[in-house]
């Protein structure tokens, strides 16, 4: 069934479909409508919605709710993500599944509240102290916002980790035709429950990449949650072997899942000399531009990346097989182009950056591709 909904409405639908039952949030443009709609959705008592005093409280509540067994979410924009930071680190340390939606806007600071920008793509990955990884997904439109929000809950549950879903203003508030009925989604996941017949050791894992079993606060098995470095029992430790084991585990569980988490859409021409890597809002223009270039005989490949972190290295290398140039259009100063550069040493990586609040038009992409290919028959048309 076709519907006409915004990216933020798609986020809400994906969250509800995934069983989200706790939201704590603080109003911020352009994310606010997610909180508004979740409050209305939970009016039937199926979930708890709290408008809190700041984003610090929002994330704090989400972590604690997760440890009670809830499936929490918060939604914010760049300035709010800054405040979520400390409790995102806490969520990593206690292995709390929380979905964080960042409806990006032009930054830094207050930036442009109603102006688009996608400058949080590195900040999302490095959002908290310590440097430990967390999955980051980036929507390109309302439909992918629905799919990725749903998937983020499954990834969060499976790996017991915070997961960040990125939108931007012109995805969040743009209405698009979508059909949510037949979207391929990840299988529904739940945390592995702790066996009821043994004493509960909240952070015990048989091997580094294993995700610990879960028992909720308030259940029959007593739970210890601590943001301090801890042993398998959840007790503060100064034992270096225990410390290394815990921290290596935080890295290993995400690293081991990296290839499974790869979420890309590759449209490859094996004869292509140029690959366009896209993510986020510019993806629509990239798809149009690639079709238009091909109509004139140009050989171009496209790779759309939905899973920004962990970096889908395998997919990027495969897509770049044989190409001389990689073009990365982005609504920031060229942040992800640097990431692609690290994956593809020896290949020319060209950044196409725009950060004045405007969109990157298909024509701009076509022109840049043509100049990299040393001229091609750019299709006609008067503008864009």
């Amino acid at each position: 069934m076709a519907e006409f909904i915004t990216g933020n409405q798609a986020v809400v639908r994906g969250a509800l479909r995934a069983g989200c039952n706790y939201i704590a949030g603080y109003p911020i443009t352009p994310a606010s409508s997610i909180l508004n709609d979740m409050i209305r959705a939970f009016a039937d008592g199926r979930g708890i919605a709290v408008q809190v005093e700041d984003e610090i409280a929002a994330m704090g509540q989400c972590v604690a709710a997760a440890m009670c067994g809830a499936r929490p979410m918060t939604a914010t924009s760049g300035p709010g993500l800054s405040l979520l930071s400390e409790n995102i680190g806490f969520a990593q340390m206690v292995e709390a599944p929380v979905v964080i939606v960042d409806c990006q806007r032009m930054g830094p600071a207050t930036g442009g509240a109603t102006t688009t920008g996608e400058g949080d793509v590195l900040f999302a990955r490095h959002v908290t102290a310590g440097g430990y990884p967390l999955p980051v997904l980036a929507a390109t439109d309302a439909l992918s916002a629905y799919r990725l929000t749903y998937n983020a809950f499954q990834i969060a549950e499976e790996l017991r980790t915070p997961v960040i879903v990125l939108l931007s203003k012109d995805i969040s508030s743009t209405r698009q035709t979508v059909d949510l009925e037949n979207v391929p989604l990840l299988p529904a996941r739940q945390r592995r429950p702790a066996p009821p017949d043994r004493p509960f050791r909240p952070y015990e894992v048989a091997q580094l990449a294993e995700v610990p079993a879960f028992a909720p606060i308030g259940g029959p098995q007593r739970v210890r949650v601590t943001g301090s470095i801890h042993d398998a029992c959840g007790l503060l430790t100064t034992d270096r072997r225990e410390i290394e084991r815990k921290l290596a585990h935080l890295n290993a569980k995400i690293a081991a899942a990296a290839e499974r988490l790869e979420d890309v859409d590759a449209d490859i021409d094996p004869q292509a000399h140029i690959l366009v890597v896209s993510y986020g809002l510019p993806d629509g223009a990239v798809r149009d531009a690639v079709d238009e270039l091909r109509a004139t005989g140009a050989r171009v490949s496209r790779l759309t990346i939905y899973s920004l972190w962990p970096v889908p290295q395998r997919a990027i290398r495969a897509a770049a097989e044989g190409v001389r140039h990689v073009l990365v259009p982005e609504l920031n100063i060229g942040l992800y182009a640097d990431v692609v550069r690290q994956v593809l040493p020896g290949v020319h990586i060209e950044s196409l950056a725009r950060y004045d609040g405007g969109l990157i038009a298909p024509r701009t992409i076509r022109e840049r591709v043509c100049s990299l290919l040393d001229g091609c028959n750019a299709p006609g048309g008067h503008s864009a």
Partner: protein
Amino acid sequence: MSMVTATRQEMMYCPGCSHAAVLEQLGAALDRLGLPPEQVCLVSDIGCIGTADRYFACHTFHGLHGRSITYAEAIKRCRPDLLVVVLIGDGGCGIGTAHLVHTARRGVGIKVFVCNNFNFGMTGGQHSPTTPAGGVTATTPTGAGDRPLDVCQLVIASGGAFVARCSALDRNLPEMIDATLRAPGFALLDIWELCVAYYMPTNKLNPPKLVEMSRELGMPFGILKNEPGRTDGQPAARPAADVPAGGSRIGPSGGEHSRAPARAGVIPGLRWPPRVEIALAGSAGERIRSAAGVIGEILVAAGLQVAQLDDYPITVRKGFSLSNLIVAQQPIRYTGLRTPELVIIQSEDGLRRFGSLAELSPETLLIVNDELTWESTPARVLPVTLAPLIRQVERANVALALLTCGLIQCGWITAEALRNLAGATLKGRFREANLRAIEAGMRLVSVPAARA
């Protein structure tokens, strides 16, 4: 089994530190309540008192500095049946002041114990928000100059249900802890303590001086407020049941009238080109975005693909308001404008924000408020006098009328087809007003578009 699993001597606190005595009494009070350990969750903040979680046999939760209140609130909301106890220091009440105020204001039934020893013990004896004026600390070597925070008055003003203060050395400490644990609603006990490592020796503080300090500061001991607040938390959320595809329960679909089924087959009177781009430019309050949304919904119901990208400043009642409406046969990927076929300029704000009309194509139809002064443009121009239209449909519906006029004038849909689709699609409280605006728009059609 006792709720506290260590003796005072086994705890890691400095000999003579009040924390150990308070924890021992808290454990005893919890034992007196007789709750099974699984029914209690202890949330500890940061600082020396934050390390207390390990000594308790119940569920424990030890998070970040000042944020214990936020965790406790969520735990209480998820599990209203649990007794949720917070242990926080005076430093935590400073960095987490906002949480203390707002959780008290929201009436969440957590029990907060402030272990207040007037300085930061764990980090080396710096002054805290409760350090009395004159108090000598590592960061106030000549004596603190600021007024100390009265945690109790703050929480009373914020709507806490039970607020009390005592000294860790008082004989009535057990009764005060009992009363706090048993009070319904948000309860807080401010316990004045001695930090034997820093504040006590530096300031020659001793038990009698604590009482004297209470008098001097006008911060009395005793129960300061006891008005049963709201009940201990809201009912727990029911577990989220699996919901059907799309997941909508209430509200968050695309508004009141967005879920019309796509129609299969040909709709008589609909002659939509492969892709059409429309720009509406006006001012806040002119329902520019609403007009685009209404037409978008109608055309989605007709089986077309639609994208609506808006541009507006942060104020919703002032300044420009623009909507790009793209309607196509195939899925729309790039949601920006390339060459708009229809441009509607309703106000000066919209004219200024839209940009150059000189770049429009000769095929573009420009519908423009005839009171404006616009530059020369290759587009076909249809100037419209708004006054009669405003008399028919009110100013707020003019944008929808102009858009309707444009769709029909461009030949993409007949008046009859649009009337039928709108009648079948539009719902909600604006249905009648929207239908009237669409009819008014139809009456505008037929004026031939002149070249400027």
